[in-house]
């Protein structure tokens, strides 16, 4: 990479080899580029207020928040809210639901885009490939509300098309929407339908980096398509796979709860309630600010620990990591 002008100037300044002129150079660089601070100011203020501001508010997890006294003046209670959460009878249900839904989602949803991308990569650019890509990308743009609406409408016990098909085949349809046993499958499969196609894009980008000479050489040596996928294509995308896997595992306690919230009802609650929906309900609907902040904090701390741990393991074993 060619050295940018500014660096060259700085190096010239440093060659006088006095700390004074180095500081002088730095000050010159800052003052000459002062307008760049103007450009970044809106983003800086935004993150400071709307991301670091709430981090300051986390302290209410250790306090009994009283709106009249504000965040700073509410009395400290230590770990009371956490202990109450750990001892509550729904604690293990919430943990189990959150973990099983995201593991289920990871196991079913993670490999499919990879398979689909490898398949796309095998066929020539033509109308068929373009059609399949355009169609499979499309559901990505459907909103969660419409998605939940589609699920509810298709699985409606009296009029849903899926129920009609199952009954037409001669089976009795389960009560998908109200039977806790079906909630997770319904949730995961609808997610697979919506996001598998879109998920291929990133792998296709990685696959486009494969050196065509590798394939030519392998063909000369008589390697079949299958062999070339195993020995050339897959190794090429392993770094991408690792990074995405780390990110996925790192958010394992953060299932996309907006769809769950829409599909939840009193009858399937025992298998649909996850930490995030619980935080929403107790916090905003039942106004237990401190308690639900504690639950949310527990969730983010576990996620952060998982992310760091998985990243560490990945760095040791595969030499690929986020940092």
């Amino acid at each position, binding site marked *: 990479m060619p050295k940018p002008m500014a660096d060259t100037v700085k190096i010239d300044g440093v060659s006088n080899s006095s700390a004074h002129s180095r500081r002088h150079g730095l000050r010159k660089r800052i003052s000459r580029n002062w*307008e760049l601070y103007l450009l970044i100011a809106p983003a800086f203020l935004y993150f400071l207020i709307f991301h670091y501001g709430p981090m300051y*508010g*986390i302290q209410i997890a250790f306090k009994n928040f009283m709106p009249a006294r504000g965040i700073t003046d509410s009395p400290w209670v230590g770990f009371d809210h956490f202990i109450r959460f750990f001892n509550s009878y729904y604690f293990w249900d919430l943990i189990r639901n959150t973990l099983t839904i995201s593991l289920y989602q990871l196991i079913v949803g993670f490999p499919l885009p990879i398979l689909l991308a490898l398949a796309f990569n095998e066929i020539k650019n033509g109308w068929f490939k373009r059609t399949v890509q355009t169609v499979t990308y499309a559901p990505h743009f459907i909103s969660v509300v419409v998605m939940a*609406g589609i699920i509810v409408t298709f699985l409606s016990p009296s009029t849903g098309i899926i129920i009609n098909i199952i009954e037409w085949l001669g089976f009795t349809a389960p009560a998908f929407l109200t039977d806790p046993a079906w909630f997770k499958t319904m949730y995961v499969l609808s997610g697979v339908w919506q996001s*598998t196609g879109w998920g291929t894009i990133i792998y296709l980008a990685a696959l486009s980096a494969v050196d065509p000479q590798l394939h030519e050489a392998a*063909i000369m040596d008589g390697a079949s398509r299958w062999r070339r996928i195993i020995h050339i294509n897959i190794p090429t995308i392993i770094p991408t796979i690792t990074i995405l896997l780390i990110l996925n595992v790192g958010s394992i306690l953060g299932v996309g709860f907006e769809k769950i919230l829409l599909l939840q009802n*009193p009858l399937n609650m025992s298998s649909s309630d996850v930490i995030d929906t619980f935080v929403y309900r107790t916090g*905003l609907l039942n106004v237990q600010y401190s308690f639900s902040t504690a639950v949310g904090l527990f969730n983010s701390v576990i996620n952060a620990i998982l992310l760091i741990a998985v990243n560490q393991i990945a760095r040791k074993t595969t030499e690929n990591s986020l940092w």
Partner: protein
Amino acid sequence: MAAVIKESKTDRMFLGFTYLFLAIALICVLYPLLYIVSASISSPTYVNSGEMWLLPKGITFEGYQRVFENQAIWRGYANTILYTVVGTLVNLLVTIPAAYALSRSDFVGRGFFMGMFLVTMFFGGGLIPTYLLVKELGLINSMWALILPGAASVWNIIVARTFFQSTIPKELQEAAHIDGCTNLRLFWKIVIPLSSPIIAVMALFYGVGHWNSYFNALVYLNDEAKYPLQMVLRQILVLQEMNSSGIGTATSGETAMAMNARADVAALLKYAVIIISTLPIIAIYPFLQRYFVQGVMIGSVKG
């Protein structure tokens, strides 16, 4: 080269399976989409009984007519357009300048700013502290509660920064400086005109996000007149259906008859409303697919 050597029998078989796999994927994704389109212009009797399974049957446009008559949907539509336009503008005004500043290697402090932004990707205050902050700022029940808390995304800033780093030649900036051009002038007169692809990509990503979002409205808005389209849809598509299948809570004032009547209207509306609410995105999507894909690709470059 590749074409000279004839494909072996196993290779052709393998390719056959690949086509089959893709064809199955195509059908699985396409069928529900076609079904919704057909159902929206079919008579509800056929749809509900399962007689309409692919092509429209008993064609009627009553569902669409009901949508056009529905005041709440129109109001939601207008609100969503307003929130999407203003929100996306705010997003761009925050994201693009910040990304440009961060792309400059001679910007003292860029490591600090980048670090500060990145931390928020992995750790945040959570729902309640954010809610309390928005309340404290007096934004509850205003459009700004849907716009300001999501004014920028770290991911998009990184994507835009990567774009600037890889497409704006450093020589351009040096030449401009030598000619006495200030950084702001450089940004507005030279960088922005060269950056229409990334601005388009960002506008699309943010715009679709605003169009589809409902959760912030659910949390921060309590005046129904301000509800965006997705909140209206939630009422029609999700809550109604839950009520009509005997779960959820019926308010005591409502008689069973009134509820049934509402459920019937909802049944007629739902497919049409799905189409109409998704139409803007579906209509522009084929033309913009290239940009969307480009955006994801730029984002996938590690940086």
